[in-house]
């Protein structure tokens, strides 16, 4: 983990709800897809956590959706603004079990950590299918970006205005050696129930510190309590205990 000051070099809308932000600074603590960063915002006590969408030698990207006052305020930050960021938080997706044809499933900004994962899996020569789920056609983003990586991309919309009608599970009939999923808790649960293979999920939760000390995000697993910010956010399907 590292705390340092980053400069916003891009902050632009991708859809009515979603935006992309790129920040430049010391990225040495960021080691792989699945990890997250924690941004300090003026006027808000707690930091805001976001999965890293991609990183290079001196910057990283996040995709975020306006979900409350914090993310609303983020959309107004101009290029050149400085942000205090904790980087290198949480664990990473394990690619060793991906097999030849991994399936990546995202709900909305859940696409963020899966983009970097898809890029690495493609570089390893895997056939990657990506399912991107949105509520409607105008909310769709990152379809072309995943396609540009050489992934097969399926889009689902809940209202049927674009792509396959329904939830992401409506597109889960593809050949699949393993799956990776990031989205709402309800979506994670449904995907895990439908999936016939093993897989990994990135679990979002309200965090306190983001680095494992406050116990604000501990969830029960078959292997005991796990701090989602430190022992997660990536969990294996087999270890999750769903509430119901």
């Amino acid at each position, binding site marked *: *983990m590292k*705390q340092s000051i980053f400069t916003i070099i891009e902050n632009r809308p991708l859809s009515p709800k979603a935006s992309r932000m790129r920040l430049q600074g010391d990225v040495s603590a960021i080691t792989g897809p699945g990890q997250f960063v924690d941004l300090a915002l003026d006027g808000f*006590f707690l930091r805001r956590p976001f999965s890293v969408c991609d990183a290079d030698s001196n910057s990283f990207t996040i995709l975020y959706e306006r979900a409350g006052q914090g993310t609303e305020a983020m959309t107004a930050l101009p290029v050149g603004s400085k942000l205090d960021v904790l980087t290198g938080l949480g664990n990473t997706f394990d690619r060793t079990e991906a097999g030849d044809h991994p399936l990546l499933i995202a709900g909305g900004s859940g696409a963020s950590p899966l983009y970097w994962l898809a890029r690495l899996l493609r570089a390893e020569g895997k056939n990657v299918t990506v399912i991107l789920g949105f509520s409607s056609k105008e909310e769709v983003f990152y379809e072309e970006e995943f396609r540009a990586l050489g992934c097969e991309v399926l889009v689902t919309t809940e209202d049927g205005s674009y792509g396959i009608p329904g939830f992401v599970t409506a597109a889960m009939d593809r050949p699949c050696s393993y799956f990776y999923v990031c989205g709402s808790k309800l979506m994670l649960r449904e995907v895990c129930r439908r999936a016939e293979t093993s897989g990994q999920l990135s679990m979002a939760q309200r965090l*306190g510190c983001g*680095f*494992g*000390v*406050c*116990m604000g995000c*501990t969830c029960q697993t078959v292997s005991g309590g796990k701090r989602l910010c430190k022992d997660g956010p990536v969990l294996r399907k087999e270890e999750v205990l769903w509430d119901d």
Partner: protein
Amino acid sequence: MGRLSVDLCGIELDNPVIAASGTFGYGCEFAEIYDINCLGTFSFKGTTLEPRMGNPLPRIAEGRGGMLNSVGLQNPGVDAVIAEELPRLARFFRKPVMANVSGFSVEEYAQVCEKLEAQPQVGWLEVNISCPNVHGGGMSFGTDPESAAAVTRAVRAVTAKPVIVKLSPNVTDIVSIARACEDAGADGISLINTVMAMRIDLNTRQPVLANLTGGLSGPAVFPLALRMVWQVSDAVHIPVIGLGGISSAEDVIEMMLAGACAVEVGSANLVRPTACRDIIEALPAVMDRLGIDNLKSIIGGAKA
């Protein structure tokens, strides 16, 4: 003895800054970030007799100038703390640590303290009778002078280490509870634990916290904590540790002027991992600016 040093129940602290229980784990996460030997000391995560998983998620919410938590005393239990956490801590922390203890019966407090009494690394026992997030324990002992005294007496009987009782602000008369603890043999008082609070999500129209309520901490509670430290330090003759929303060197000095002989820094650690170190490093310059030669000389200084 430096100009920052203070005495806490007969043990010298290099400076008055103590990282507060529940915001510092058992030290190892922070030791990866900075050398935590710069602290006065820290109070480790509230420890009970048995392991506890705590409350359902979500356990964290935000308020203006602060945060709410409803963690509910998640901890590995005192035996695991002694077998695993204290030996690990010894590898990177040279100072006596403050052991924060909680329980669900008077006997449980005494049993946990008895086990920790045998640990040479433990300098002080901080007895938490003020956790607002558990039912039938924690705060229920801290909202009534009789129960507060009963816990204090039971702990006093099993330990020679300094006993510091941590009080809840969620009471009508904190002074009477502090006096009851002093009369029952407490060596010090720390205050305040978090303030019982709540948030509602406008979209779901449901409480944000699964536990419905949680404890508010952060800068929002600082003036409330300061007022209570002022009142309690007036009423007792034992040392008072002030905590509640401290996030700067100026806050430390203000709390000491109100009567605190040392301070704890809590939620600031969660949003700025180096908060305690930053505050300690900032103290000398702030003291110079304010014409303060040494911190011991300002304790209760606002009452002169």
